[in-house]
């Protein structure tokens, strides 16, 4: 299956064909934290998928038939069903696919993870466990991770210097196989950012041959 490292499709590109049976497709962009969430879940659950990267500064016309405003991520199934909004897509994957469940089974624990997500921007203190859901990595950790991976790149790693618990969590996350498999090299990230802020259309393909 084509990996993450493919050039973004832009205006004038051909619309992709239908999604083959046994596969799910994600419309994504290599540096977008929202689609990063969904890619983490696809990977963590071992779901067979294909990735189509979208050039967000020069969107293909056909992409607006996948999402009214051309946003990513979008999931497309082989039955032509479309699911968007990163959190909805992640929950859909957890519900629809067998194997390891990322959301807990207990209704209260599920509710707690959803409340934590709401508080994402205002994290003050959390319980004394390694991960946000307990002693094992679970959905809430993957939903929060993309922003913390980017802290270092954006040069604001200092904002966790006074929260040792969060720093420990970041270290624990970096040991997770799924997180490691999708870690973006810091230099590639920075290269993308500097092109992006100059409005360069080639930003999205930075680092590809």
């Amino acid at each position, binding site marked *: 299956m084509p990996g993450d490292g493919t050039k973004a499709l832009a205006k004038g590109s051909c619309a992709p064909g239908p999604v083959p049976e046994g596969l799910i497709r994600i419309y994504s962009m290599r540096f977008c934290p929202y689609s990063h969430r969904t890619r983490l879940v696809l990977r963590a659950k071992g779901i067979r998928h294909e990735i189509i990267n979208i050039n967000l500064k020069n969107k293909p016309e056909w992409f607006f038939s996948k999402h009214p405003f051309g946003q990513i991520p979008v999931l497309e199934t082989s039955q032509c069903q479309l699911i968007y*909004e990163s959190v909805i897509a992640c929950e859909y994957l957890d519900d629809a696919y067998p194997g390891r469940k990322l959301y807990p089974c207990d209704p*209260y624990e599920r509710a707690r993870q959803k409340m934590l997500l709401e508080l994402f921007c205002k994290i003050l203190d959390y319980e004394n466990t390694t991960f946000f859901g307990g002693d094992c990595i679970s959905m809430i950790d993957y939903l929060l991770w993309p922003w913390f991976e980017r802290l270092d790149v954006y040069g604001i790693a200092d904002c966790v210097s006074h929260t040792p618990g969060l720093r420990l969590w970041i270290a624990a996350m970096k040991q997770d196989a799924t997180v490691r498999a999708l870690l973006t090299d810091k230099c590639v990230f920075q290269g993308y950012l500097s092109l992006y802020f100059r409005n360069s259309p080639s930003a999205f393909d930075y680092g590809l041959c």
Partner: protein
Amino acid sequence: MSGLSARSLAKGSAPPGPVPEGLIRVYSMRFCPFAKRTLLVLKAKGIRHEVININLKNKPEWFFKKNPSGVVPVLENSKGQLICESAITCEYLDEAYPGKKLLPEDPYEKACQKMVFELFSKVPSLVTSFIRRQNKEDCADLKEDLQKEFSKLEEVLTNKKTTFFGGNSLSMIDYLIWPWLERLEVLELNECVDHAPKLKLWMAAMRKDPAVSALLIDVKAHKGFIDLYLQNSPEACDYGL
């Protein structure tokens, strides 16, 4: 159910005791649309519950231990577990209690309900802005914005060709949207759905639902509440009692 029409608890009140076994408690306020969502689900699923109304203009200190943000609704069960955020409380109730499921079992249908919920998401803040706008003559922009949002909902019903947002029977997404559409009458905003015939039919169908009709707010009481609320009166939440 006990407490639905009880006086609200305010600053200086004693904190309530633990929730008895076999019951779930909802901290609410009679005129809050967010709490209405939770009350609708409790009613629709026939869940035994008690209601404690909170005076949102004069909050009890102990209430911040139930929800640090100090807003309703909050669910508390007999294990002392607290659930906040109206949509999360509704989903929790659907998962934790037996009987009719309000959310679909099919993962894609469930995702569709959540996508419709996102489509609706701008409506609550627009309605709040309208209520707070001093000069009601100068609200053309807000009304236009609301009309645009309602057009999105009309499009969903048109594409689905069903009476309700989840299909031909009423389900979770309908209850989540209803409290704001209920308010159009008291706010004199019915014109915002004039161009949305399917949405109007949906509103009429909703009023026939037993849970919806049991929890309908009297328009006069609602108006009295809004007037006092805008004046920041601590009497607002108990208007009509």
